[in-house]
């Protein structure tokens, strides 16, 4: 399982590295969304709003959604699906591998977005640094959840429009937890509840993914 996970993660990351879709498509989109978030706040609040953590996570959420879709599309061509199916990979390993690759990709994007928030939304640099661990874990949960929900929408009709509908409700508590913990890191406040939520969610998704990913991949 671990071997397969490693293999799949390396393959996904290598494809990402080669295709540069993250670099040239997702990153500009992410930064643009931050600028738009600033514009949406209005000229008075753009640089000094307590809404910054929420907007940051809202942008993270949509970026995560597009990266999940991207990760899914790597195997979605019918020919590729057949070829990969003949490798008979361990599904739990595939799940862990894809989640791992997605997590690393989202970490990169999350870091860029945090720097962007310091620049555009004027959040305190020290607060952003303090928020790093909670951002990292939240993005990890989004990746594992996204990998499972992505597998639910392979093939069939309208997977592109179905994925957000399936995934966004599940991202809601992550958005809440993330926003609160980032606020706490910036302006002070209790943090442990957010860790409980995110860690419980992470454990739940990993457990479900390892147990049922095979059921989803089987056609």
């Amino acid at each position: 399982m671990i071997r397969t996970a490693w293999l799949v993660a390396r393959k996904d990351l290598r494809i990402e590295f080669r295709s540069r879709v993250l670099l040239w498509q997702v990153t500009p989109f992410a930064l643009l969304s931050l600028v738009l978030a600033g514009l949406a706040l209005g000229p008075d609040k753009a640089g000094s709003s307590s809404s910054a953590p929420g907007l940051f996570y809202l942008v993270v959420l949509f970026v995560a959604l597009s990266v999940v879709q991207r990760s899914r599309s790597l195997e979605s061509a019918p020919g590729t699906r057949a070829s990969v199916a003949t490798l008979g990979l361990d599904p739990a390993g595939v799940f862990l591998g894809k989640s791992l690759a997605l997590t690393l990709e989202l970490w990169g994007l999350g870091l860029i977005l945090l720097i962007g928030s310091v620049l555009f939304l004027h959040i305190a640099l020290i607060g952003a640094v303090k928020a790093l661990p909670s951002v990292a874990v939240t993005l990890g949960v989004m990746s594992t959840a996204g990998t499972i929900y992505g597998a639910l929408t392979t093939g069939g009709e309208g997977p592109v429009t179905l994925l957000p509908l399936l995934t966004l409700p599940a991202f809601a508590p992550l958005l809440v937890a993330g926003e609160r913990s980032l606020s706490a890191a910036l302006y002070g406040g209790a943090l442990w509840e957010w860790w409980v939520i995110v860690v419980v969610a992470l454990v739940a998704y990993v457990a479900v993914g390892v147990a049922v990913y095979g059921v989803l991949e089987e056609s």
Partner: protein
Amino acid sequence: MSGSFPLLAGLTFCAQPGTLVVLRGGNGAGKTSALRLLGGLERLNGGSGRVLDIDLSSGDRRGLRRRVGWMGHEGSFYEDLTVRENLEFAARSLGRPVEDIDPALERVGLGHRRSTPTRQLSAGQRRRLALGWILVRRPELWLLDEPHAALDRSARDLVDQLVLDALSVGVTVVVSAHDQLDARLAPDQVLVLSGGRVVEES
């Protein structure tokens, strides 16, 4: 099978190890579906079957897929990976030696293309890559879906030669084709499909 339209409706045959079986028939006769079923890529909705001693309805289809070499129409791989990286992924997934990759690429005439991204390959080169992928995997059963389609003379000869080599070491090969295969390959069994069932057998 997707939706509720049956792709196969009465197909019975038995192939001995180390023999060549040819499935013939026009478009939509059910050749590809039959091959997919044999390769464990499709679920069996009725009837029964055993391939490489694995039951198609209740057995370990994932295990079966690992032992089958498949060449489809598209011959799709990861487009952003190079030729060699695609084979490396396959070899490592199946625990096959990575050292086999370069000789296999030479054998199928892609030695000079090993670091080309797969998306830049022509249709014919993709089929050669698919053959290379089979060589690296060393499967016990070869399933080739119209292996001569879109290939030039030399590539067709290559396919035939590889099939002959495989047969000589006891591999079973099932091939689908529109019409007659080249004379070099003498099939042990020919099944003519039409409307998802066998209409002629020899």
